[in-house]
């Protein structure tokens, strides 16, 4: 493509175009936001048609003129169709699950057709990502998965989208930029092999949650050790099981403490260790609390608590 040559200019140009886009959500593509340029194929076809025109003149072919003009007319009108293929599409996005740095973060894109015209051969790509092909029926809707590589923790803004098409003949490429104010959370990448979590001086870290004082009953969660099941109480239920809950002493809680880490460690390594420990603690069904210089997270356990912990680590600065 010719404009690849001017990639720097193109980048600046695109940034300018992107800045002009209202950051609405969902975004509906308007006609004036769609840009169009001929492709190499379009230029080749135009040259071929010019040659056919000259041949028609030279050999005095009335039908040659007719054929050439027919193809020219169809080609020119197809450019409008190319442009209109993108107009009145609505794009919305939301992030799927948070991921650890290094794993791809998936954004779910939903594309809707708002004009009552079927759209074909659309291509959607995030900046620097492989394109996704899709087509839409009239008034149709489709959901696409935009997979974005992640490198570091924190918020990941969804990259600006390029929506393009060459329909119907590939003679021209119409495209538009869509930037949606959508972001996904990237947890820090857990350290591979950190030392075991330090036990705070003078305290014992329990193997499991505290088991001293019976504190009540609650729904049994799949995976909980069988001895915890309150069989008698469960028998009274119509379905499901109850589990005994114990109030543990302070000593059973693993404190993931920023300050307790070796002072030589840099910030990211600390966060990586803490993330790994939190994951291990959850796997071992331990309760843990988190202490960062700015934040203190009350002890707890379970997937929700893990998510809170990892979010705190992801967004710490």
């Amino acid at each position, binding site marked *: 493509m010719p404009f690849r040559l001017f990639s720097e200019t193109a980048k600046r140009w695109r940034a300018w175009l992107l800045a002009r886009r*209202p950051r609405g*959500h*969902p975004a509906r593509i308007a006609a004036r936001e769609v840009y169009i340029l001929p492709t190499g194929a379009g230029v080749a076809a135009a040259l071929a048609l010019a040659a056919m025109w000259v041949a028609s003149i030279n050999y005095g072919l009335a039908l040659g003129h007719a054929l050439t003009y027919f193809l020219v007319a169809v080609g020119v009108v197809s450019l409008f169709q190319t442009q209109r293929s993108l107009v009145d599409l609505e794009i*919305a*996005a939301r992030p799927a699950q948070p991921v650890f740095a290094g794993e791809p973060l998936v954004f779910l894109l939903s594309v809707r057709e708002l004009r009552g015209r079927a759209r074909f051969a659309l291509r959607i790509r995030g900046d620097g990502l492989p394109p996704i092909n899709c087509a839409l029926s009239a008034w149709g809707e489709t959901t696409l998965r935009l997979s974005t590589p992640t490198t570091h923790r924190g918020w990941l803004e969804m990259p600006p989208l390029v929506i393009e098409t060459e329909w119907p003949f590939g003679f021209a490429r119409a495209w538009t930029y869509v930037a949606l104010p*959508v*972001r996904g*959370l990237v947890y820090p990448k857990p350290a591979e092999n950190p030392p075991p979590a330090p036990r705070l001086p003078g305290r014992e870290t329990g193997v499991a949650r505290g088991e001293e004082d019976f504190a009540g009953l609650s729904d049994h969660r799949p995976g909980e050790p069988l001895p915890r099941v309150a069989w008698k109480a469960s028998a009274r239920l119509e379905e499901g099981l109850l589990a005994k809950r114990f109030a543990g002493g302070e000593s059973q809680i693993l404190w993931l403490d920023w300050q307790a880490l070796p002072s030589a460690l840099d910030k990211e390594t600390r966060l990586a260790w803490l993330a790994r420990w939190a994951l291990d603690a959850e796997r071992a069904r331990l309760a843990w609390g988190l202490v960062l210089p700015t934040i203190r997270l009350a002890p707890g356990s379970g997937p929700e608590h893990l998510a809170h912990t990892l979010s705190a680590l992801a*967004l710490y600065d």
Partner: protein
Amino acid sequence: MTAASSSTIPFAEVLAAAESIVLGKAKPLRLALACLIARGHLLIEDLPGMGKTTLAHTLAKLFGLGFARVQFTSDLLPADILGVSVFDRAQSAFVFHPGPIFTEVLLADEINRATPKTQSALLEAMEERQVSIEGVTRPLPDPFFVIATQNPITHLGTFPLPESQLDRFLMKIELGYPDRAAERRLLAGGDSRQKLALLAPLAEGKERLQRAQREAAAIHVGALLLDYIQALLDFTRQSGAWQTGLSPRAGLSLLAAARAWAYLDGRDFVMPEDIQVVLPAVTGHRLLPANPLERTSSEETARRLIEAVPVP
């Protein structure tokens, strides 16, 4: 119904009267009134001494509604609120002694101090507008308006209301500190309790309130506005900024609140501004930031949401 250009604003005098007692709280007052008209319940979250009780009491008094106040504590039992059946020897039967909930305006003070069990008993009754005890269903009076107050969750010794319960409040508002002028008047003026006692109830207050409730529910909401509400809901569900998006019930609440607000404005249709004004109060307690450590106020959350969706 009044036309858009008309200057007659319903309940202007109510608001004026209330403002003379709850000083410097025009907007919370108006929101509370809108909440009442929208037949929703109100949660006020603030520190003690900000005038929560006064506000509730003022509203009840103005409309001539029955008023009850329950101070929630950790030892409060559901029966203490709903009522209890006691065996009456004279009639040799169980006689139901209705609890404080059988009133028109109920102030549930510091609701987050009660145990979850008690909380949910109240919230269930709020939602269903009736009380079922021992198999007998007893309807609550109409209008029925609960103003619950709670201390900000950061304080110890509380049972924060779970998210699903919070959804039952139409609005959550904060009163905040009064501005300097209002504070000065507060200091200079007499005791608000005395003024409250002197407050003259509105003539036919209850009837006017009920009529307002009916009329507000019938206010015109164009398709454009429904689109707008949907776009707002969609954004909360898709942007990833919040743990969960707004529920369909939240959408209905937004609509009802916006209608009530438009009614108070003396308009017979809803505008985007109505939605934007009530948005912080309606969505503040329903949207939890994806990052649990992020402390954003309802206003900030709402502004983020508003600025993401163009008006129709």
